[in-house]
């Protein structure tokens, strides 16, 4: 009897970890791995999403490589990612440097600037579409009032400007987030380093360049990677809400073009081929991010 119970206990112990991980594995396989493999699989078929699939080998991929619209959409994706990454980090770091020594009002700035992070892209997209509105929007009205009327643009209707107008809304949403991250990094820099540098006669810029930057290097890398991945795969929301790719395709990014190809042109096979190409591109960034984030995590 005792031996049997022990054996049962052993068996329970043996399958226990597998039972505990099973739900996670099932969910993960169903909604991450299966879609990924299915997407890869269907990228070799001609398929409208409804009727019979027809195997066409790598033809979808050669269609994509010849598709000028996809490359211009990818170009826009890169432009958008570059602008967004540079400005989110530049402004976030600059603001963090400005308030790091502040005593009064620091909490107010932090709370206020961080707030847009919690808003949905839909709400801020619609809101900023109105701020940019040529007639009733507050941006042009403000520019006129302060005598900068010459700067008035068709913020969302001018093909040369629209992509940057949308990018600004993304930047606006995330400045506070990056500022808080940088703030945490800056507060961790030991004061003695600055004091020592001052004794050596270092100027403000020198101190920033040779003390602050190396000291916050880790947090800088995390910030930049977060901004890049965010820019590549989150741009669908704002662009869909604000311009839907227009005017004249000037704000078409990879994801909006993929969804359009699948749902409007009913070419799911080609859309999935485009998804895979985009994946190959972001994989490099994703891998870097993965390495940075799992670095301290030593798995034996």
């Amino acid at each position, binding site marked *: 009897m005792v031996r049997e119970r022990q054996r049962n206990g052993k068996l329970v*112990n*043996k399958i*226990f*970890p*597998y039972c*505990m*991980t099973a739900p*996670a*594995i099932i*969910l993960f396989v169903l*909604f*991450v791995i299966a*879609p*990924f493999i299915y*997407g890869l699989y*269907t990228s070799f078929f001609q398929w409208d*999403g409804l009727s019979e699939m027809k195997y066409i080998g790598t033809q979808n991929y050669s269609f994509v490589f010849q598709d000028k619209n996809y490359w211009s959409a990818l170009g826009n994706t890169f432009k958008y990612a570059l602008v967004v990454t540079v400005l989110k980090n530049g*402004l976030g770091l600059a603001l963090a440097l*400005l308030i790091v020594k502040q005593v009064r*009002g620091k909490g107010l*700035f*932090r709370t*206020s600037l*961080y*707030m*847009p992070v*919690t*808003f*949905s892209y*839909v*709400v801020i997209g*619609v809101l900023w579409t*109105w*701020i940019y509105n040529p007639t009733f929007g*507050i941006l042009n*009205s403000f520019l006129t009032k302060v005598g900068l009327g010459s700067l008035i643009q068709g913020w969302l209707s001018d093909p040369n400007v629209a992509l940057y107008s949308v990018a600004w809304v993304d930047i*606006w949403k995330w*400045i506070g*987030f990056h500022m*808080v*991250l940088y703030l945490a990094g800056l507060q961790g820099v030991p004061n003695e380093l600055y004091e020592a540098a001052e004794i050596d006669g270092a100027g403000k810029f020198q101190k920033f360049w040779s003390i602050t930057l190396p000291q916050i290097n880790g947090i800088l890398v*995390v910030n930049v990677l*977060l901004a890049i991945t965010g820019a590549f*795969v989150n741009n*669908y929301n704002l662009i869909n*809400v604000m311009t839907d790719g227009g005017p004249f395709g000037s704000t078409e990014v990879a*994801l909006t073009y993929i*969804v359009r190809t*699948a*749902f409007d042109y009913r070419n799911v096979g080609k859309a*999935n081929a485009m998804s895979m190409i*985009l*994946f190959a591109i*972001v*994989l490099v960034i994703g891998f870097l*991010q*993965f390495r940075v*984030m*799992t670095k301290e*995590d030593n798995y034996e």
Partner: protein
Amino acid sequence: MRKKKVTIGSVFRWAILLFFLVITIYPVIWMIFGSLKTTGDFYTNIWGIPDTFHISNYIEAWERGGLGRKYLNSILVTGLFLLIIIPVNCCAAYVLARVRFKGRKLIYMFLLVGMMIPAGILGMPTYSVALKLGLVDSVWGIAFVYAGQAVSFGVFLMRSFYVSLPQSLEDAAMIDGCNRFQSFVKVVLPLTKPGIMIQVVFSGLNTWNEYFLSSIMLRSEEAKTLPVGIMTFVGEYSTDFPQMFAALTAATMPLIIIYLLAQKQFIEGLTAGATKG
């Protein structure tokens, strides 16, 4: 001489900070003002406070947009998502961190692969798979899809909490007669509340605001969540601006209030969520 220099510097600094404060806050205030104006007032009085507080905008927007239903759907999706993801991730992360078994490393690495596949890439194929499983256009279905896509992050995050706990805690619990599962639930789980909090704030907010996948998957009015519903409302009633602003405000206000009440948890949770996972 020196004192003057400092003053100019600090005035400059305050000016910049104030500028960013205004451009962050004013759009939100403008939205609230706009939601209370009459249509005429909206066109003629772009900047200022409304003439009269036109509360009826809210009532009409609420009814026309069916916002009650959309609110309920968003609460259901986010609630169900959290109910699935917290126990699932905690159980998996716990054994991956604390129990030695065959295939442990393999399972962990397999689950982590998901962190390299962004949700945007999966959008289209996920729709096709969900269609096959009959999960399209359903509040329950999309909650499961979100849960599947939050596994990698959650397991990675929770594991880092479990790894740091001392082994002696569990040993003590097992000597007291607990089995593995009981010691996990009674002793280990309560100690990792901060990790659970991060998941609730970070993944919960992501799900509450999610638009890309829900705009593909939720097509009928009965199934739409708040972000998709707001977008439909904007498309249909784009000429009635004060009502549109009322809908936006109604969708945002509760979040602003929760944020202001629990800003510490929000900022810590979102920051830790983004940097840890």
